[in-house]
């Protein structure tokens, strides 16, 4: 059975017809062509498919597309204007927070939610905060440094805008 859904994705309104059983990650990758969101384990363990749904990090492999009707979704493609980096992207760039890069979009989307709820996390809080996102290359140390750098930057940004 097809359902018509309307949602906002990276600031743009989209209306589409989806099957009941279509997973949100397939909708994003295959119907919207936003392939920055990855499919890793496909069992809600690895976090490669993490997106923001109404501001919260969600594993899009374990969410029905039809349930996203009316939601506001942000994917890795939508976090910074073309040609610029989000502070977390910049952190990963500067601190070498990736090797192969497969987990990176999910890591970054998760980190946005983490820093929103906890702008000044300890190292332990960062490690718990990204505990649902697996990286098989880096050993996490540089990922933690990347998020620490981003937290500093975002704090400075906030202070200068206030």
């Amino acid at each position, binding site marked *: 059975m097809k359902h018509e859904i309307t949602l906002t994705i990276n600031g743009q309104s989209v209306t589409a017809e989806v099957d009941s*059983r279509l997973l949100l990650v397939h909708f994003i990758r295959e119907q919207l062509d936003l392939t920055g969101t990855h499919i890793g384990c496909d069992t809600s363990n690895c976090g490669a498919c993490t997106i923001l749904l109404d501001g919260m990090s*969600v594993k899009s492999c374990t969410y029905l597309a039809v349930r996203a009707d009316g939601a506001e979704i942000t994917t890795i493609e939508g976090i910074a204007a073309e040609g610029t980096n989000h502070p977390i992207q910049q952190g990963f760039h500067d601190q070498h927070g990736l090797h192969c890069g497969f987990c990176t979009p999910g890591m970054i989307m998760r980190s946005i939610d983490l820093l929103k709820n906890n702008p000044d996390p300890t190292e332990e809080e960062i490690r718990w905060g990204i505990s649902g996102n697996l990286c098989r290359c880096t050993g996490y140390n540089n990922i933690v440094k990347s998020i620490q750098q981003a937290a500093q930057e975002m704090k400075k940004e906030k202070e200068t805008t206030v």
Partner: protein
Amino acid sequence: MIPANFTYHKATSLKDAISLVQSLGEEAKFMSGGHSLLPMMKLRFATPEHIIDISKIEGLSFIKEEGDLLKIGAMTTQTDMEYSDLLRSKYPIFSDAVKLTADPSVRNVGTLGGNIAHGDAANDQPALMLAMRATVVAQGPDGRRSIPIDEFFHGFYMTALEPADILVEIHIPKASGRSGGAYHKVERKVGDYATAGVAVYLELDDDGVCREIGIALTNVSAVPMRVGRAEEMLRGKKITDDLIDQVGVVASEDSEPTSDLRGSEAYKRSLVNTITKRMLNKALERARQ
């Protein structure tokens, strides 16, 4: 992995959800967060013909004290519980459990009601509910009814909920100044089910005598279980180190673990013993604060 074909229905109210399930029959399943059900559907362990989405029903997400009760709405997410000032300050047993449940992104979606209604002894909240002597409030075609937690879990994925019942609220006796609870589970890695877990909740009287006690276990039995024999050893007594040691042994003896990839039966029994003792001490410490 894609689930088998089914038809999705969005319920706009409890009444709507109940009338939907009555017209669709027993092949319909309710979905709240969906983080237990959808993975099972993707693996084709569950193949419901209809999914009734109850996550958009308003008014089922709250955490509040009212009269003698702590009331938590069924659609309250694990993240809501994690950031609740009330739970953090007065019911730290929830903070213990939530931190060890799945991972932050799953907790953003997974709900308290779903964790209980799923009827899985591997989930963490059933042990907390047993230890705190919760009452499950369910709404069905004939209105609301209260189910004591000891009558709620019937078997593997089976609960007292009838097909047209929706778990709507959890009621827990309000914390007193001299009550305390604690939960811990051993897991192989973040997001895994417990190898073994223990929830303890107790209340002392003014003389430090144990007035009320609940001890319950995670994932060491087919059905979420209370260790009644261990509770009886402590009720009405002053809790001593010696008594705690004995209770750990009894909890371990009465648990019903089976050997699997998470560990041997003997290892799990040993874990139950150790965690029970540690959680009793932690709950006592919190009750005395």
